[in-house]
């Protein structure tokens, strides 16, 4: 899944998004509430918070720690769609 704000887009591998445990970790990790869990526990991207992304990489670290390195991408739309590494 992918959602775009004005400045930031977030892309999450669909399989990872269905993982309720990883969804919980991403939801906990993000300081600006870009991630949330839907009723069935799967991952949701909160569109209105996308542009609040502070590029902290905590979501990338959380995914990597759960063995899903690279499953979450933060795209800087103002920088030629550069992906936060």
């Amino acid at each position, binding site marked *: 899944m992918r959602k775009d704000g*004005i*400045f930031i887009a977030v892309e999450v591998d669909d399989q990872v998004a269905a993982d309720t445990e990883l969804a919980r970790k991403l939801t906990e990790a993000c300081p*600006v509430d870009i991630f949330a869990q839907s009723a069935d526990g799967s991952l949701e991207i909160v569109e209105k918070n996308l*542009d*609040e992304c*502070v*590029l902290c990489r905590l979501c990338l670290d959380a995914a990597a720690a759960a063995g899903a390195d690279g499953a979450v991408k933060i795209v*800087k739309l*103002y*920088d030629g769609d550069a992906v936060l590494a």
Partner: protein
Amino acid sequence: MRFFEYEAREVVKRAGIPVTDYGFTTDAAEARTIAERIGGPTVIKSQVLTGGRMKAGGVKFADTPEEAEAHARDILALEINGHMPRGVLVDPKAEVEQEYYAGVVWDGTAKRPLMLFSDMGGIDIEQVAEEHPDHVGRGHFSTIEPFSDFQAKQVIAAAGVTGRALQRATPVLARLAQLFLDNDMTLAEINPLAELKDGSFVALDAHMEMENEGMPRQKNLIEALGIGAEEGTREDHTPTAFEEAVKAIDAADHRGVIQGKDTGFNGNIGLVIGAGGGSLTLTDAVRQQGGKPANYSEIGGNPSVAKACGLAKQVLQKDGVEKIAVMMSIVSNTRVDIVARGVIKACLELGRDPGETIAIFRIPGAWEEEGFKILDKYGIEYCDRSVSLWEAAGRAVAKIEGAS
């Protein structure tokens, strides 16, 4: 925080400065009782937090208790500059030999309290200072080092006061200075300070203002004066729609801080400014270079994109605003890229071209490289710390004047 005269007089009295045997009441019949106790001619004074009482009929003289009651009834019903009185102060009409002025005010430029004394009391000290500067003595004192009565004496002597009056007025001004320090005042004024026929000094009127931030520390005094927490700072200012809106945006999001004021501003350049005194400096810089600010604002403490956006939208929606200038001193705890996102988002949400709407973006500091990438994308003129606040303000003014 402002105080009514009857409260200010109590503060003066507590500091050991002689006051008249006055009484405060909210009831006309009680005013008569107070006048009977005083037992002579009285002055009935409206207790309002505004000036111009005398001219508005809020101060009247009474020869008898009956007259005092009648005057109190009239004054209690009299609105002055939109203010209804809290009550009336019934004061003995003093036999005054001479009126003086004694005051202590916080000097924001010198960052120290300033004592003022004049032998021309009963009128505005500003008028005396302008028309008779040789009749005003001045002197700063420290908020750290112990205060000496001698400092007060020097100020009084500088106003040309000598002899017995100098000796008797010195403890009054010294106690007023101590009161100022002890009670976190920004203004402590006795005007007039009367010298009576017997040579004694007595405060006939007092005006006090306390530093708002000092209020928690002065809780005991405020409680002793019977002032409830619901009264707040009693500031005489009704917030504008812009000010209310900015306050609501700030309150809704804990991240960072924004403030906006537009009372007295009606220009065409919207200001989204801040950082460590930067707002004041930048507002002055815009004005001194011929710009007309539409508002004053403060932004800092690492606000969210939503908060920066909210402030910028409010500024942009003000009548007459052509462009906004986004300027701060060098920031360390506020991110340049986040503010850039916020102000650009505001433009976009209002259907305006950020490159045309933002006259200048001058916020150097944390995350500036990222911020500059964002500004580049939207064609916004920006500058780094090599451009002074003054120059950035000048560029914004020139751009707006050129567009008008």
